């Protein structure tokens, strides 16, 4: 296996790096500065509300994925298993608990502050609920607020569901935040943040849509997970996030205008051979190697479902300052894993057609029932509806034991071979028609 070279950084990446560094500095000084800290989840998060209350968010999922990328997750998981957690359960949970057992040291090497509030807004994943029940026991006495996000079981967001969520926000979540911080929510501040969020969301959609161009100037999965960071985590609603997406859009538009392929950790990709739509989260422990298999083969991910766990902005959703709580409620319910299976299949079909993809690939994650249960049926449906070759690989988010490089590489190579043959056949058919 080759050693990946040092990643090449664009300006937007530098901006993002600074944003993150500042956040972690703020977190490490939180207690000294009297700032309250909220632990919460990424999908359907309430970042604008958290920031409007002057609190600092920590996302245990992000800690877990970063532990995976820093190759620390293996030992964290083992420590959680020693505590009685089964080998079979979601490894994000175990990684987070293991990290806690080992001093809760964040990616910058500093200890993350303990939470003042656990905000359990569990969009699209039942395991979130179990995760925070466990955290509540590990931080006895911590304030905990729960926001139950109803599932879009019928493929729509109903008025009853919105009312239910708004009432929870008004009568449970916001009062608990006010109790913890000792101050009232400033609605005008929240509205301003929601306005900023919408601006960043507009820009993000434009970034995503550059992938319709041939060649695509971005990889919507491997690079997409970096691009989506500020919007999906601690920065949505801030001016900084708007600036970040302005810069990102400028960069990718420049690339598009020059007909450049995506940037990879080893520089510009030379040629776009295959355009793919991918379903499922990536693997984090071997992220670079995983990505490399794709760019070495000229495969670009032009749309992915994982980059929609933090919101389906490309399908029209925007945060709205007019009705802030309704808007937050709709946001939570609209994230990808809160869609029912038929909606998920429709969305993938739409991406394959809209982004003129050559194939559809599932990276099925052992840990994650929310994503994985039902994927094999989704695959069949897509095969029937779109007549594109479908591929299926399996890995895990942060458990090294479930990433088999050789196996994945073999499968992907066969898949790309199939895509290549199909391209030749399609080209021949076109010639005959012409």
């Amino acid at each position: 296996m080759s050693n990946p070279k040092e990643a090449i950084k664009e300006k937007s990446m530098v901006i993002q790096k600074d944003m993150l560094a500042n956040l972690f500095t703020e977190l490490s000084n939180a207690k000294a500065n009297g700032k309250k800290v909220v632990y919460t989840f990424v999908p359907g998060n309430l970042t604008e509300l958290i920031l409007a209350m002057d609190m600092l968010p920590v996302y245990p999922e992000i800690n877990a994925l970063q532990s995976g990328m820093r190759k620390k997750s293996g030992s964290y998981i083992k420590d959680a298993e020693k505590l009685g957690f089964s080998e079979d359960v979601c490894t994000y949970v175990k990684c987070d608990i293991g990290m806690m057992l080992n001093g809760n040291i964040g990616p910058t090497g500093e200890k993350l502050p303990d939470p003042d509030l656990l905000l359990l807004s569990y969009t699209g994943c039942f395991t979130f609920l179990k995760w925070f029940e466990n955290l509540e026991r590990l931080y006895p006495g911590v304030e905990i607020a729960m926001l139950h996000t109803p599932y879009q079981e019928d493929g729509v967001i109903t008025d009853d569901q919105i009312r239910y969520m708004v009432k929870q926000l008004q009568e449970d979540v916001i009062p608990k935040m006010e109790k913890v911080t000792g101050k009232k929510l400033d609605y005008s501040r929240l509205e301003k943040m929601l306005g900023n969020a919408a601006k960043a969301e507009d820009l993000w959609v434009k970034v995503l849509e550059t992938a319709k161009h041939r060649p695509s100037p971005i990889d919507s999965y491997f690079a997409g997970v970096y691009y989506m960071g500020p919007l999906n985590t601690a920065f949505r609603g801030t001016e900084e996030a708007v600036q970040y997406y302005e810069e990102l859009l400028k960069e990718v538009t420049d690339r598009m205008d020059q007909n450049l392929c995506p940037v990879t950790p080893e520089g510009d990709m030379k040629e776009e051979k295959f355009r793919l739509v991918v379903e499922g989260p990536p693997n984090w422990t071997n992220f670079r190697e995983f990505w490399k298999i794709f760019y070495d083969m000229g495969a670009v991910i032009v749309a992915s479902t994982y980059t929609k766990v933090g919101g389906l902005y490309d399908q029209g959703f925007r945060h709205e300052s007019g009705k802030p709580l309704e808007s937050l409620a709709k946001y939570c319910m609209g994230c990808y894993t809160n869609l029912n299976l038929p909606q998920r299949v429709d969305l993938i079909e739409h991406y394959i057609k809209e982004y003129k993809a050559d194939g559809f690939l599932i990276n099925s994650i052992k840990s994650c029932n929310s994503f994985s249960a039902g994927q094999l049926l989704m695959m069949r449906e897509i095969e029937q509806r779109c007549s594109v070759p479908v591929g299926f690989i399996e890995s895990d988010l942060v458990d090294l034991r479930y990433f088999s490089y050789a196996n994945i590489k073999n499968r992907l190579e066969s898949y790309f071979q199939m895509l290549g043959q199909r391209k030749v056949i399609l080209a021949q058919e076109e010639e005959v028609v012409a």
Partner: protein
Amino acid sequence: MMKQAPDRLTSLLDECKSLAFDLNFTYAKQWKAKSKFRILVGYLPIYVPREIIHAANGMAVGVMGVGDRKQIIKGDAYYQSYICHLPRGIIEMALDDNLNDFDGFLFPSICDCVRNLSGMFKLVKKGKFTRYFDYPQNFNKQIGGTFYRELLETVIADMFKINDHKIIAAHLNNSIALYNRNRELIETIYDIREEFPWRLSAVDVYHIIRAGMVINVEKHNEMLAEIVDLISEDFGEPMDNIRVVISGSFCEQPPIGLIKSIEMAGCYIVDDDFMLGSRWIQGSIENTSHDPLNSLVDAFLTQSGPSSAIYDVGNPKSARLVKQVRKRNADGVIFCAASFCDPALLDRPDLQKGCDDAGIAHINFQFHENTGQFKVIKEQAGTFSDSIKLWV
């Protein structure tokens, strides 16, 4: 000389046994065939308020998985190896027409596998309606209560579209009374077994309760009442067994062989969470109200038992498990959860800690509903039993 179990009991138990594992749901289908206004609504583990289905001239039929009674051929092509067994058996049944004649399906909000299975039923077009039964995790009457009532009304509207049967208060109160009786009789069986566990084996109890999920409640109540009478008589002889509570088997059900092995290893199972839905509501539900839907809502909010499917901050399950162990005068807990079951397995460390803190011995198994080998489990349960006998 030891008094034998009455013959009538043996024949009732045989009947329950054959009903419990009829994966073609023959009884329910025959029941429905008697009137074109009757409907069948299948539901998955754990809980749905069966009362509303009964009041809508329907029968709620528990679809608890195929256990080791049906070979999985298609189901495995629908599920990766790291997903629990239950949904693959259920999709197999759906594809094999076992569930034909069912009008609708309810998928209680218990985990993402069941949630996504509701979408799979939509994609393969099973049933006239399919609902993910997303019960509230907010237990404030004005918030979660309102939401839950709307959920019940949605299901009632789904059923009304099929048979035009309007639910009136008297119907629903009657249904509530029948299910109150059902739970009361089931609890009586557990209470009798608490004192005289040798009169019925845990497998017998399992069959009795599971049978109740595939027949009408009126018939089940008759059977239960008769069983209660029969086991109130003295027969059989106690064995030198320890007394255990089983925890973690609320959704995917353990194979009968596993339950049997635990008992044969010297453990009386004096309480369990098999088929928890039948015992979900603790105590009786108000059944004289002019607004019985409200009674069902209140019962859900205030009388739900402990479960991995319910957010338990403020009312921890571990304390409730310890209470259950004490109440049943049990010697230990056997944690027995399906492999890959996130809700059960993520609860386990805290439940184990609760037991440790309370000085309650415990062991732990994982299973698939179609596990076929029980030698190791029997040995471990035997060692557990011996160690308790030695030290307690």
